[in-house]
């Protein structure tokens, strides 16, 4: 579950990225967060992952109130979310399997748990025949699947994807979106940031639209209707 309550964010240089954002995403929901470039989408994601703190307002993620969360507890909050980025962020010198296993190892999982869980998520994202490859031997769509498998491996309640299809062609983009929808159907809450209109409109999901740091629409009609 995600809750933003009247959140403001001003960066050190004075840029006011968010100007009073409030919304809530319930457990099990699938939502798109859309808006033009520079509207504050990534800022919202960074607030969710605890990478930055709000200037004002409250951010609550999976029952953790990030405003009062101790620094030493932050890793445990992060284990309840899985994050996917436009640029994949894989470790180049590790294999597909190791990239995913690595995310489990840092949480202190045993080798036994790792050997059981990693093949399962790799199969879920359709990469069970690529486990020994290095990231640069894979296509962009496949690399993003590795990133999704890594985000999933610790069984988080919330999956956040910041422009996951930004580097992919339309066919691969659709596949990734379908994969995220499948993950949502398995019970995870999913929040996808994008500015690809056709893609959003081909799903019938909740769409939260922001512009210049404010929410301009939030509806279940699955329609991405802002115009610049």
């Amino acid at each position, binding site marked *: 579950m995600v809750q933003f309550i009247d959140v403001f964010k001003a960066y050190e240089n004075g840029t006011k990225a968010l100007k009073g954002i409030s919304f809530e995403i319930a457990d099990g929901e699938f939502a798109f967060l859309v808006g033009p470039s520079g509207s504050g989408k990534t800022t919202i994601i960074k607030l969710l*992952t605890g*990478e930055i703190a709000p200037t004002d307002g409250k951010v609550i993620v999976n029952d953790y109130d990030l405003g009062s969360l101790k620094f*030493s507890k932050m*890793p*445990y*909050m*992060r*284990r309840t979310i*899985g*994050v996917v980025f436009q640029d994949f*962020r894989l*470790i180049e010198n590790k294999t597909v399997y190791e990239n995913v296993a*690595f*995310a489990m*190892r*840092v*949480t*202190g999982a*045993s*080798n036994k748990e790792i050997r059981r869980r990693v093949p399962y998520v790799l199969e879920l994202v359709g990469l069970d025949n690529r486990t020994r490859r290095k990231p640069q031997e894979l296509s962009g769509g496949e690399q993003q699947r590795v990133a999704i498998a*890594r985000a999933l491996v*610790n069984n988080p309640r919330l999956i956040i994807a910041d422009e996951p299809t930004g580097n992919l062609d339309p066919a691969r983009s659709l596949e990734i979106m379908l994969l995220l929808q499948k993950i949502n159907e398995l019970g995870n809450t999913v929040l996808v940031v994008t500015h690809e209109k056709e893609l959003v409109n081909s799903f019938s999901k909740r769409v939260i639209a922001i512009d210049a740091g404010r929410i301009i629409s939030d509806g279940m009609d699955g329609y991405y209707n802002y115009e610049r």
Partner: protein
Amino acid sequence: MRGNRFGYYIREGIGSIFTHGFMSFASVCIIVACLLIMGSFTLLALNVDSVIDTMESQNAILAFVNEDFSEEQARAIQPALEALDNVETVYFVNKDTAWDSYVDTYENPSFFEGLDSSFIRHRFVIYIKDIALMAETRDAVCNVAGIADVNAQLEISRGFVTLRNIVTFVSLIIVAILFAISLFIMSNTVKLTTYERKDEIAIMKMVGATSAFIRWPFVVQGLILGLMGSLTSYLLEWGIYQVVTTKVVSSSGLNFLTTIPFSVVAIPILVAFLVVGLGVGIVGSLVAIKNYLKV
């Protein structure tokens, strides 16, 4: 800590040493150089100290009793001398004994014919605790009633005390400077690794690694480099010390000096080297990783 995590820290730590072979080699060399200089100055200071100790046990103040005192009167002064600060032991030497030993030191006995002990004085041989306070002690002995004159070899004692002070002072400064240099180099070696792996560190944080988990492999890296530096410099120091002390003992000019055998200081020096080497390794890597753990 679970077994597989401990193995992970060790593997990662050793891995970084090999991926940054040159910097690792350089930082071990710097630690070795620093420890060798530190160790050599410490050994020099210890030896000067031991020479001073020997001198303290040999270097006595001679206190001459008033000419007109009888032997009983002279002996009565002893408690007053023993009561002085910095006095270790006091021996009474009567005229006859002093005369005999005096005559013995000359090769031509005929020179002393017709003379006898009545022309010299009863005396005390006074051993002191701290050679640095020799001048004060001499003055105090002078002021004791019945003591006519005092003979103390102040120049030699002053020379050695000054040498000890200089060696101690210079050693401390050099140790401090070299410690700072080794810390700097070590921290930069580890920083190079952290810089190269900053993306990986960011990913680790993103998937929920604790700061301790991220820190450990770098600490292991620093620890191993520090350990290699300590042990290498220890063996070198040992060898160098053996060579130098053998030269000193066999040289004609310096053979009056006694040197401390390495075996006496082997354990303390090993412990000191390990503490400094491991300390530099651990602190250096903690400093290097600090900035990456803030988010």
